């Protein structure tokens, strides 16, 4: 057990730290950067990504051949930690965190050549098109159909809650290629061009201000060579995807704490700095403990990816669950501190803490749900991690019938 970093790793951290400090503008406000509806900010995010791509940071974990730096998971963790410290996100995040790694893991050489380098260069935007109206937590119930037709598949169906505020180049789509029992054995992963004829979009606004999409597939024709990995093995590949998605959760660092402590030192209440208020002190201590736990859980995840033999299977991964479980409460603690001022949005001359706090709560209401809500994560950890029993799906219809009868 050791929690230190090598000299090279510290050097890398410093290098990335300095990179962000240099390229981010003095007046950078991370709370605002990801909001849609403002093209100059969109452009800023793309420009920032471009500068990072020159360094290779966004795709650092990939082999050099495909535009990466061949970083270890610890080195990737350092990139992720610094991104978290400076509160930046890549517009092409879905490609970097999901589509790239999965293509590299299960794709053919041709697919790797075709899909991966443009993602590495930040030239394409990918959407992860998995969730459907009737396949949310029950991902395996995916009903969007892909029917073979000569050298193509024809796709019909609907996806919903697909994150992304930019025009997608690729829809990384989970589709049903066979009706099977159990249902998860008939699914495949298909790369669908975002502008393929028959694809249409509708927008779902969320309270936190981020963009969600509904996507409709109406006789969309895609060549069979766009199917990633094995046919009907999509669910297994997708589970691996979630693993990458979980792995992509940033390793938390100190910055949020520094900002909060700074605020509590400067802001006064009843003539005394907030930090002298016993309630505020308790809140700060709790926030610091939470941060330590999140920081460690992030690194634990990073280590586990390379030390599976020693640290156990990934199914029992707490990182994402812990983070999601704590998010609403953390936001609420901050709101309690600001009281009635928590309502004010950024821009109001009365706003405290840049008006960022209420939105943190709004965001929590959405952020905690992608890649498994806390409720479904608990079930996954209980069943797969702890081996607690569950009712097999094949009995669910019988239970449902019995319920109908008893009514």
């Amino acid at each position, binding site marked *: *057990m*050791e*929690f*230190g*970093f090598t000299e090279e790793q510290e050097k890398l951290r410093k290098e990335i730290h300095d990179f962000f*400090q*240099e*390229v*981010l*503008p*003095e*007046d*950078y406000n991370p709370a*605002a*950067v990801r909001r849609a*509806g*403002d093209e100059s*900010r969109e452009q*800023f995010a793309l420009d920032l990504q471009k500068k990072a791509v020159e360094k290779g940071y966004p795709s650092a974990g990939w082999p050099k051949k495909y535009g990466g730096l061949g970083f270890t998971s610890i080195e990737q963790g350092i990139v992720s930690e610094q991104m978290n410290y400076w509160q930046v996100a890549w517009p092409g995040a879905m490609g970097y965190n999901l589509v790239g790694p999965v293509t590299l893991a299960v794709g053919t050489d041709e697919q790797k050549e075709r899909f991966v380098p443009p993602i590495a260069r930040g030239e394409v935007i990918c959407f992860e098109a998995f969730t459907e109206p009737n396949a949310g937590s029950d991902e395996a119930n995916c009903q969007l159909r892909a029917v073979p037709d000569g050298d193509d598949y024809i796709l019909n169906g609907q996806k919903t809650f697909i994150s992304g505020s930019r*025009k997608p180049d690729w829809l990384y789509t989970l589709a049903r290629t066979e009706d099977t029992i159990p249902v998860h054995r008939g699914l495949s992963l298909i790369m669908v061009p975002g502008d393929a004829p028959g694809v249409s*979009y509708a*927008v779902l*606004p969320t309270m936190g201000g981020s*963009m969600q999409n509904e996507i409709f597939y109406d006789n969309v024709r895609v060549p069979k060579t766009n199917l990633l990995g094995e046919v009907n093995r999509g669910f297994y590949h997708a589970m691996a995807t979630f693993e990458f998605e979980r792995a992509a959760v940033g390793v938390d660092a*100190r*910055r949020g704490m*520094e*900002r909060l402590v*700074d605020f509590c*030192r400067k802001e006064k209440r009843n003539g005394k700095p907030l*930090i002298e208020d016993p309630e505020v002190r308790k809140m*700060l*201590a*709790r926030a*610091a*403990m939470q941060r*330590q*736990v999140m920081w*460690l*859980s992030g*690194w*634990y995840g990073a*280590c*586990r990816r390379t*030390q599976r033999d020693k*640290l156990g299977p990934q199914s029992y991964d*707490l990182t994402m*669950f*812990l983070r999601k479980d704590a998010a609403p409460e953390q936001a609420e603690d901050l709101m309690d501190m600001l009281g009635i001022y928590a309502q004010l949005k*950024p*821009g109001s*001359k009365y706003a405290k803490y840049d008006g960022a706090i209420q939105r943190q709560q709004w965001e929590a209401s959405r952020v905690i749900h992608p890649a498994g809500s806390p409720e479904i994560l*608990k*079930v996954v*950890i*209980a069943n797969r*991690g*702890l081996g*607690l029993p*569950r009712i097999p799906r094949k009995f669910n219809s019988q239970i449902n019938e019995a319920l109908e009868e008893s009514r």
Partner: protein
Amino acid sequence: MDFSLSEEQEMLKTMARDFLETECPEAVIRDTLRSDKGYSPELWGKIAELGWMGISFPEKYGGTEQSIIDLAVLYEEMGRGLFASPHLSTVVLGGETILAAGSEAQKDELLPKIVNGELILSAAITEPQSSWDGKAWEPEGVTVPAVAAGDDYVIDGVKLFVHDAHVADHILCAARTGNGGKAADGITLFLVDAKSPGITCNILDTVSGSNKQSEVIFDKVKVPKKNIIGELNGGWAPLARSMQIGAVMLCAEMVGAGQKVLELTVDYAKTRIQFDMPIGINQHVQAHCVYLVGNVDTSRWVTYLAAWKLSENMDCDLDVSIAKAWTSEAYERACWLAHQVFAGVGSTEALGLMPLYTRMGNSDQYYLGDPSQHMEVIVRELEKLPPQEKPKGKPLGLWEPGGEKLPAWDIWKEYYERNR
């Protein structure tokens, strides 16, 4: 960055677990807790033979010179096995302090005896009034005076919540020898023979039962000057360091106990049948188990981070306090969650060890600083944080106040249609 135990640490863990499962089964645990001494002298001798007292001491005193992390691995197993002994008082609070501050003669005389299991120590630090005032384990809390008189010092006052004083050969007493200046600067450590005239030890009736704590009355007790450990008026620093190690060991104990509580609970959820099904099929029960894992695993991480920093001699006030505050609360939550799953069965000592695990937490969470005290330390450390670092790039004016747009439907729609 490496979260796995080394091969030697895995061996130590297995050895300790096997030993305690064989030598200290349920019946022995119960007998020990009911006994007057509160520990088993027979097992004390055996663990000395196994080298458990010498893990952190140099070879020249008979130790094996392993790290604080190894010690934590051992404490995890002692917690798991509900092993009651004066190890923390003797080896950590006593031994580590003597190692850090004692003279060569004191070290040569005392440490080998500690390693051999011949000597039991107890640390008398906290006092009635100052503990009530929230100053336990703080230098301000040490008020019992020691006054010089010829070749001796005379200690006069009451120490409270003193672990293992009733069986100790020597009591390491923190007493006030100087006033003025900083509170920490007037404290001296005395190694007091427990049989000195004037010492009365009254065992306290506490709920935990997993250890024995006493009120120790020092009625004008004479201690020879040569029994001072460390510098006159300079006792606090070495003691504080031992208390930090001790706090992390208590965390490790709770981690090990928590792990066992988790295993017992999940096992019960899988085997207890109600409504013709194992209760663990219910998602409410599953959620309790998942939160239990969360509490135990997070505690393990914060504990070993603190242990690592201690073993590397790094600045670790923040990490030790985070470990102690977090783990104490997490262990309490973990036991509570277990009780939810066990329901009534978990509250009876006749049907299992669950109540004993819960009671262990009732003592560990307060000893060497309760969560609120450590949270106060955390904030004191946070206050030292530098101001937030600022980016240095040219300002772009994209985030001027007022530039924020409402996430109203029409703006979304307009943007959206323009981009599709």
